[in-house]
């Protein structure tokens, strides 16, 4: 079992690192097709990363260690999260510490690192992006932790492996009002965390409307490649998280290799499905104004709170 567990952790990291750009390319392709364009192909983000990695590393004058460390930290935090989360198997050597609060905090660490890098450049746009990103991050935090609270109530633990294993054993749980509300709240929070369209437009070229992109304007070459890879990995991990909380079926709970393989395939399919859904939705949605984002997040906060309350008073499931 232990050997398979290690394989599972390694496979998760490899799938996330290797698959994240493909997921990004897939989503862009879906959008392009829905908008009537041909699209650049699914492999384009990988080609971009490869091209950028081959370029010469550039240090803008006046920046310090924080600027250079941030892309590394962004990728590292996301990779650690990918290793921790029971995406493919709930029985891995690290599943004991796959704590949801830790996962959320690690992702926030990546955000903070990038915000510091944005400020470190000393440019107006860097500061602007950092300021906005931290504002949104601060407001997302209550929503996401309350949603965590809601999904942890049925099993009495914030351990992701326990939550997912519990859901697999009680298939009706995600269909209960509490489960639905929690997943809906989490979905809004994921959009905000990943910087997708109602909150931030990753494809924008207008600096004044940027949030995430404004922070990373000064990056070039391999650093930029890491930033791009990091944010794609973030999206993949967050969608994977959402997928495994909403529909955990298929995640391996045992220790056999074929099951693990099946789980990985299902993981890819689920994430791709969510990505398709998100890309399709983005075609129809507009980015909201920065100062409307709190409304969105307040709504999501309310949903999370309702999820908590609903799991108190409906069905008595909280009593276990």
């Amino acid at each position, binding site marked *: 079992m232990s050997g398979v567990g290690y394989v599972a952790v390694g496979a998760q990291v490899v799938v996330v690192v290797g698959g994240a750009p493909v997921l990004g390319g897939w989503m862009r392709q879906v959008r392009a097709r829905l908008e009537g364009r041909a699209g650049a192909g699914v492999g384009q983000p990988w080609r971009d990363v490869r091209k950028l990695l081959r370029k010469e590393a550039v240090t803008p004058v006046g920046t310090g260690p924080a600027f250079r460390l941030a892309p590394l930290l962004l*990728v590292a935090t996301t990779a*650690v999260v990918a290793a921790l989360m029971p995406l493919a198997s709930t029985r891995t050597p690290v599943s004991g510490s796959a704590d949801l609060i830790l996962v959320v905090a690690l992702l*926030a660490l990546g955000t903070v690192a990038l915000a510091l890098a944005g400020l470190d450049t000393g440019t107006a746009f860097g500061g602007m992006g*950092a300021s906005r990103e*931290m*504002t949104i991050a601060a407001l997302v935090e209550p929503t996401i932790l309350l949603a965590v609270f809601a999904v942890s109530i049925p099993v009495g633990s914030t351990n992701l492996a326990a939550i997912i294993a519990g859901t697999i054993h009680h298939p009706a749980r995600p269909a209960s009002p509490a489960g639905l509300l929690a997943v809906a709240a989490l979905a809004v929070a994921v959009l905000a965390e990943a910087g997708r369209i109602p909150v931030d437009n990753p494809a924008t070229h207008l600096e004044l409307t940027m949030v995430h992109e404004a922070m990373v304007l000064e990056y070039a070459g391999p650093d930029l490649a890491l930033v791009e890879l990091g944010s794609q990995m973030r999206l993949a991990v967050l969608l994977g998280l959402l997928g495994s909380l909403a529909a955990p079926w298929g995640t391996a709970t045992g220790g056999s290799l074929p099951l693990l393989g099946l789980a990985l395939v299902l993981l890819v399919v689920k994430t791709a499905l969510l990505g398709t859904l998100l890309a399709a939705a983005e075609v129809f949605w507009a980015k909201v104004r920065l100062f409307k984002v709190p409304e969105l997040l307040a709504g999501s906060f309310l949903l999370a709170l309702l999820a908590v309350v609903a799991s108190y008073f409906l069905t008595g499931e909280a009593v276990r």
Partner: protein
Amino acid sequence: MNAIGPALAVAAGLGGAGSLAGALAPARVRPLAAGVCTAGLGAAGVVAGAAALGGSRYGVWLPGLLPLAGVRLAVDALSGLFLAVAGAVTVAAAVYGIGYASPGGTHDQPPPGAGPDGASPGGHDMAAASPSGGGHDDGVGGSFGVGHASPGGGGRGDAVGGSFRGHPSRGGGGRRDAGAGSFGVGDASPGGGRGDGAGGSFGGHPSPGGGGHDDGAGGSFGVRDASPGGGGRRDGAGGTYGTAYPGGRPAQGIRSRGAQAVLPLFALALLLVPAAASVSTFLLLWELMALTSLLLVLAEHRERPSVGQAGLWYAVMTQLGFVLLLAGLGLFAARAGGESFADLRAGAAGMSPAVRGTVFVATAAAFTSKAGLAPLHAWLPRAHPEAPSHVSALMSAAMVNLGVYGVLRVGFDLLGGGPAWWWLLLTAAGGLSAVYGILQAAMASDLKRLLAYSTSENMGLVVVGAGAAGLFRAAGDEPLAALALAAALLHVVNHSAFKALLFCAAGSVLRATGLRDLDRLGGLRARMPATAGLFAVGALGAVALPPGNGFVSEWLLLQALVHGFAVPGAATAVVLPLAVAVIALSAGLAAAVFVKALGVGFFARPRSEPAARAAESPPAMLAGMGLLAAGCAVLALAPGLLGGPLARAAAAAGPAGGTSLAGAGLSVRLHHTSASLYPLWVALALVAGVAAAAGLARLPARRGRRRDARLWDCGGGAPTPRMAYTATSFAEPLQRVFDDVLAPEQDVHVTPVRESAYLVRRVRFQRLVPDRIEHRLYLPVLTALSRTAARARHLATGSVHLYLAYGLFGLVTVLAVLVVGW
């Protein structure tokens, strides 16, 4: 015989010796002598605390030392925790203090001149700077004269725009809106305004010409937030916050005989308060602590008038708190029939619920005021910034803890727990100050004030934990209560470590630049790399993110709350989700706050002359901070070491079943659930991840070396430091989001030229974010008081006979009442 008694004796002896040395030694060796004694005192405190945490107990009664009741000391695990924390912080602060009081600092720098890479003193810059100085003289603390108008339209306006890295289009927005096209409103605030324009602050820009601004095209005003300046202005103290130290001698006051003599006594009081075991001893030591800290706050009163104001607030509030404490504990002792803590414990059970409730509310109000909890926090953001920095560290990392200690000691131990409403009240106060404190910190642009408000927030979180523990205990779930209490205590320890470090680092910045104003700092990581690194370590602890120590305790606190859903009762069901939300919101805002403090204060490039000329601190200061940073690292990576001691401390406070928390050296594990955390492994995994990512980036690169290049800035290229985001502009979006809560006040003054009302000579924009609780709660009381005082003046006519008549009248009334009423 255990080590506690001798250690406390040594601490007392060293306190006396340090005080004498501070008072009598010649100026040259004074800081060193007093500092060494204080450090030794702190070390003795650590020894005593560690012994107590290890399980030994100690009690002594010295009847001869104090008339009537004598001095009664007792140390258990709960006292031991606070003793050890205070001792550890004292050691570091004393070492730091030796360096802080040593010669050097801003006054040894050459006079302000052309700095190596300071802001170029070009014509435009000067033009912008002069009205800004005017603002400071008015005591508005950061109001800017903004705007350059000239009949003839584009020319001058564009020139102004041009001097700020070419955004004439935004200035042009103002011009067009003004309708006449006759003047251009350029933006002259360093960072604030321009950042705002770029920040796309949509709508609501007041425009001098009365025309409606196009959304997003505005940003023509210098928006600057002199956040707490309102207080300063109202008090008539003038430009208190964010002003440079005139004369730049921050270390002068602390070097004085008085300050050096008082510092060891303050440290001693910090150690002995948790060891007190009778009401009289406790009150005596509490008052000693209050008085010595007040004297230390006032140490630099010659340098800035604001120190006096802060001292006045502190003195009044702390003495009012003392009166409350006296009343509460006096009532308690009277009803319990004895004044030693053992008597109180024995007598508490027999008291009526009303008396118990009164005692709890009175003492809790006093203690939470000392802990800096809203709404009784008003002294804290005043006194902490104005004290010398290592004193701030001691106050913020050791003294406020004692407020929490008092709540725990009286509420849990002496009163033996109570009904749910006590704890609901406490949790509400904690939640309020957690969110309010961190919001005010987010708005603050004064570094030390920011840290002070963050102290208020962290104490709020601790008290939320304590309140939750009380709730769980009232509902009968002792193990969970012990867990929540252990989380609160762990947060006390963590907060002490990182806040002391942060205050010390802020003190280093202050000493090197004479500035506390984040808007004018920046770029310090190049000039003071060690300080910047140490500040980053502290900030990592404060943001409650994984490799930092704050994360561990907040995680534990959240675990306690999340598991509380199993506790029956509507109160817990309603309180717990809200508490989780409050903790999460404060954690999120704390991330923004410390990104601001670190990113704006230390990164980018210097935005003022003093910041550009900063120099690294002397080794003693770095050593003091290094000790604290090492403490942070140990707490962050091996919190499990504290598992046993924390369980013992929680058990000493009351809730039994403290075995729920297990620390196996490196991890934190909760027994009755499956939650566990391995901070060291997380940190190692992060390091491995960073290394792997670095390898990945390095692998296909053609050339190994990195090439330097000019900043791109979207084609603008090499922006000036004045274009960087300042603390104020960084906080602007948050300020808008929490507009309803913060209720900022803003003012626009348009001064036309004498010849025509259409031509604007000067536009002044100012925005203040006042402390709203203070405005609503304190101001009416103060106004009423001064009105009453003014009326009472009629009673004092100057006639001695009248005054004597008052005395006689009073005496007769008292006697008459006694005769009739008895």
